[in-house]
């Protein structure tokens, strides 16, 4: 690992100051992606700004029909939260499929979403449920947040504060794991939010995306049958040593149908 300075600011304002003073500083959340990256010398930030002590970035609460989760909330806290289990069980289940239990004891929802790994799980949850990303300066909709491979709408020096999920009428996530890395080879999150049906796919392209043809078919009839036979095509799909584009295309169809069935048998709040 290269040398860097380490800061543990006490509040959001202090963290923003540190970022403003040093354009090469990087935020440190759970460190489950960043520290292995530094260890392999794939990045050389001048400083790490540890978000662990900042209370503005923590906490899970509901506000009417919204579930708000602080960026520094660790996966394990989401899984164990009675509030998440009661209001958005499909999210708790998706989080329980991230990595392994040791990663889940440290990793955070904000770190995962800000990282925007093309094979991450929670990107699909946020996109399917039309979540809102609240930062220190503005709100960004999920449709705008995920820009490209490992790239988000967050600007230099901007901090993700919390994510707000509208509570869906029904929702479910189905993941086909890459058996070696445990990331999603393909994952599909289906959600119906206020009558609006959204299908988000992760693992298959440079970034998470919505499968609009499926959404249109489901809008007419919410059933696995409605999307059967619809061809997703292979344009833009990842084709690598883990799976061919054709294999991924097939997984998208199969997992979507499974997610629909899971959402239908689940409680009103999903799976």
């Amino acid at each position, binding site marked *: *690992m*290269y*040398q*860097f*300075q*380490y800061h*543990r600011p006490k509040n959001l304002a202090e963290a923003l100051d540190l970022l403003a003073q040093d354009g090469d500083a990087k935020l*440190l959340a759970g*460190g*489950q992606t960043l*520290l*292995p990256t*530094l*260890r*392999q010398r794939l990045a050389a930030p001048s400083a*790490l700004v*540890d978000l*662990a002590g900042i209370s503005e970035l923590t906490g899970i609460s509901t506000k009417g029909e919204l579930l708000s989760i602080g960026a520094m909330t660790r996966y*394990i806290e989401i899984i164990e939260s009675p509030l998440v289990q009661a209001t958005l069980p499909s999210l708790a289940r998706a989080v329980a499929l991230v*990595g*392994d*239990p*040791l*990663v889940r*004891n*440290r990793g955070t929802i904000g770190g995962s979403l800000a990282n925007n790994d093309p094979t991450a799980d929670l990107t699909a949850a946020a996109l399917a449920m039309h979540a809102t990303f609240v930062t220190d300066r503005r709100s960004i909709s999920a449709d705008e947040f995920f820009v490209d491979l490992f790239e988000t709408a967050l600007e230099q020096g901007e901090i993700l504060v919390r994510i707000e999920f509208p509570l869906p009428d029904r929702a479910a996530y189905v993941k086909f794991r890459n058996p070696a890395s*445990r990331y999603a080879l393909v994952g599909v999150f289906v959600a119906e939010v206020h009558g609006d049906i959204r299908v988000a796919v992760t693992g298959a392209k440079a970034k998470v995306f919505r499968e609009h043809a499926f959404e249109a078919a489901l809008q007419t009839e919410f059933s696995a049958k409605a999307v059967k036979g619809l061809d997703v095509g292979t344009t833009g799909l990842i084709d690598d040593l883990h799976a061919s584009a054709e294999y991924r295309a097939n997984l998208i169809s199969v997992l979507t149908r499974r997610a629909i069935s899971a959402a239908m048998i689940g409680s009103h709040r999903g799976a």
Partner: protein
Amino acid sequence: MPDVTITVNGKREVRSVETRTLLVHFLREQLRLTGTHVGCDTSQCGACVVHLDGRSVKSCAILAVQANGSEITTIEGIGTEEQLHPMQEAFREHHALQCGFCTPGMIMRAIDLAIRHSEADETTVRRELEGNLCRCTGYQNIVAAILAGAVAMRPHV
């Protein structure tokens, strides 16, 4: 170099560390607690598992400075040679190791697992062990040991 105060196996340690020092290197090289192993450099194997404030974590994916002010338990802190921890005893009893390299991480993970799932069945144990790799045993005896260790750890009523 910043100073850190970390309670390791009940003993308060105040040391200077480089900011880039990983917790696992702090434990092994500065405190000479070499029971915690390093099995990979991609944070995937779980040989380095310790407890940080009561939760099992990969000590290769945490900086020592991040652990400042916290409590760490390593494999050295759970039992003595005369009186093994029930989970260590179960590993010995069930022959749950061959080369032994993964064992400290396995045992630290197993203790956390047993505390959180005292009624764990085989499926739960296998699922909860996903972050720990063993290249020798095929896991069969490790799972058997953890099931027995979890029973031995149950609070006696």
